[in-house]
C-alpha cells in the first residue's frame, strides 16, 4: 500500500515553486505572466471568488500585453485586480499573488511595453532576430542550429563566385533564440520589432 501514492498525496507545487519559476524571467510582463500561469496551474485552490476569477482575468490581460495588443485599460485592470485581490482574497496565496503583481507594476516596464518596447528582449512579440551582414562569415552554424528552418543562406565555398547571404526569415522564426549562442562571431542580434526599420 505504501508503494502506491494516492493522487492527493503527490507533492504539490507551492508558492515557492511559483516564485522560482517567475524569477527565471527578467521582463516584468513575462515574470507576471509566468507567475500567474504557475499559480493557476496548481496552488490556486479556487475556493474564493476574488482570487479564482481575478487571477484568471489578470492572465488574460497579461497575455494581451505580452502579445503586443495591450493598452492602458489592461494595465489599469491588472492594477485593480491586484488591489482588490489583496483586500478580498481569503488566504495568503491570493494575497501573495496580488503583492507580486503590484510589485511588478511599480516599474516603468509595463508602460514601455505599451509603447512597443521590451527592454529585456524576452517578449517574443516585441523582438526579432537579425543577421548582421558585416559580421557574418557564412559558416552556416546558425542554419544547423535552427530547428525551424528559418535561416536562409549558403555556406561560403572557396571555388564559388556568387553566394546567397544568410538571413532570417521572419515568417518562419519562432524566436526561440537558439541561433544566438550558435554564432561564434556574434553576428546575430535581437532587435525590437516595433521600433526597427524593416529592410
Amino acid at each position: 500500500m505504501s508503494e502506491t501514492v494516492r493522487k492527493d498525496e503527490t507533492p504539490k507545487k507551492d508558492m515557492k515553486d511559483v516564485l522560482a519559476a517567475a524569477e527565471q524571467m527578467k521582463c516584468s510582463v513575462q515574470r507576471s505572466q509566468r507567475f500567474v500561469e504557475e499559480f493557476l496551474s496548481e496552488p490556486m485552490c479556487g475556493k474564493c471568488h476574488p482570487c479564482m476569477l481575478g487571477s484568471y482575468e489578470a492572465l488574460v490581460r497579461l497575455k494581451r500585453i505580452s502579445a503586443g495588443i495591450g493598452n492602458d485599460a489592461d494595465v489599469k485592470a491588472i492594477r485593480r485586480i491586484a488591489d482588490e485581490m489583496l483586500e478580498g482574497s481569503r488566504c495568503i496565496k491570493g494575497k501573495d499573488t496580488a503583492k507580486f503583481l503590484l510589485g511588478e507594476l511599480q516599474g516603468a516596464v509595463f508602460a514601455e511595453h505599451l509603447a512597443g518596447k521590451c527592454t529585456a528582449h524576452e517578449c517574443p512579440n516585441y523582438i526579432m532576430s537579425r543577421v548582421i551582414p558585416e559580421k557574418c562569415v557564412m559558416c552556416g552554424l546558425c542554419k544547423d542550429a535552427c530547428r525551424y528552418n528559418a535561416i536562409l543562406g549558403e555556406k561560403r565555398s572557396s571555388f564559388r563566385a556568387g553566394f546567397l547571404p544568410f538571413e532570417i526569415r521572419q515568417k518562419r522564426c519562432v524566436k526561440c533564440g537558439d541561433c544566438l549562442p550558435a554564432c561564434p562571431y556574434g553576428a546575430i542580434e535581437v532587435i525590437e520589432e516595433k521600433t526597427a526599420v524593416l529592410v
Partner: protein
Amino acid sequence: MGKMVNLKIDGKEVQVDEGTNLIEAAAAAGVHIPNLCYMKGMKGIGACRLCLVEVEGGKAPVIACNTKVKEGMSVETKTERVQEVRKFVLDLIVSMHPLDCMTCTKAGVCTLQQYAYDFELKESSFTRKKFGYPTDEANPFIKRDPEYCVLCSRCVRVCRAQGTNVLEFSGRGVGAKVVTAQDKPLQESGCTF
C-alpha cells in the same frame, strides 16, 4: 432560549441569540448583507466574499457568513472598502455570466441581477468569458444550464448534506463546473427528484 447578545449593525441596536452569524443578525436588524454562497442553516464557506463587513476594532474586513456575534460588537456593512471588493467580485462574475436578463426565467428573483443593479453594473469591465457548456434538459422539471452558474456551490453542499451526493465539482477555478457522476444528465444520475 439561549443567551442573548447585544450588538450594533450600521448603527442599529439589535439583540440576537448567541451563536448567530452576522448575516442573520443583520437581517434581524433590517440590514441586508449581500451574499451569493451563504445558505441559511448551513455553515458559511466564505467563497463569494460579498458578505465582507468591517468590525470596529478589527484590522481587516471579515466574512459575515462565518463570523459569530459577540457582545457589544459594532459592525459596518457598507464601508467604501468592502463595497469596492463587492463591486469587483460582481464585475468578475458578470464577466462570465450570460446577460440574458430579458429572457431569463430567473429575472426579478435573481440575486445577481439585484446586486448588479445596486452597483450599477450594466456590462462587465472585464473580458467576456464563454464556456459553451451544454444545457441539461433531460429532467422535465429541472433545467440545468452551467453557463449561468456562479460557482456558489450551494447545490453541491445541499446535495451532500441531505445525503444524496449526486452533484460535485469537476475542475477548479474558472473552469469549474457542477457535474453529476460522469457528467450524465440529472435524470440518469442518482438524483432522487
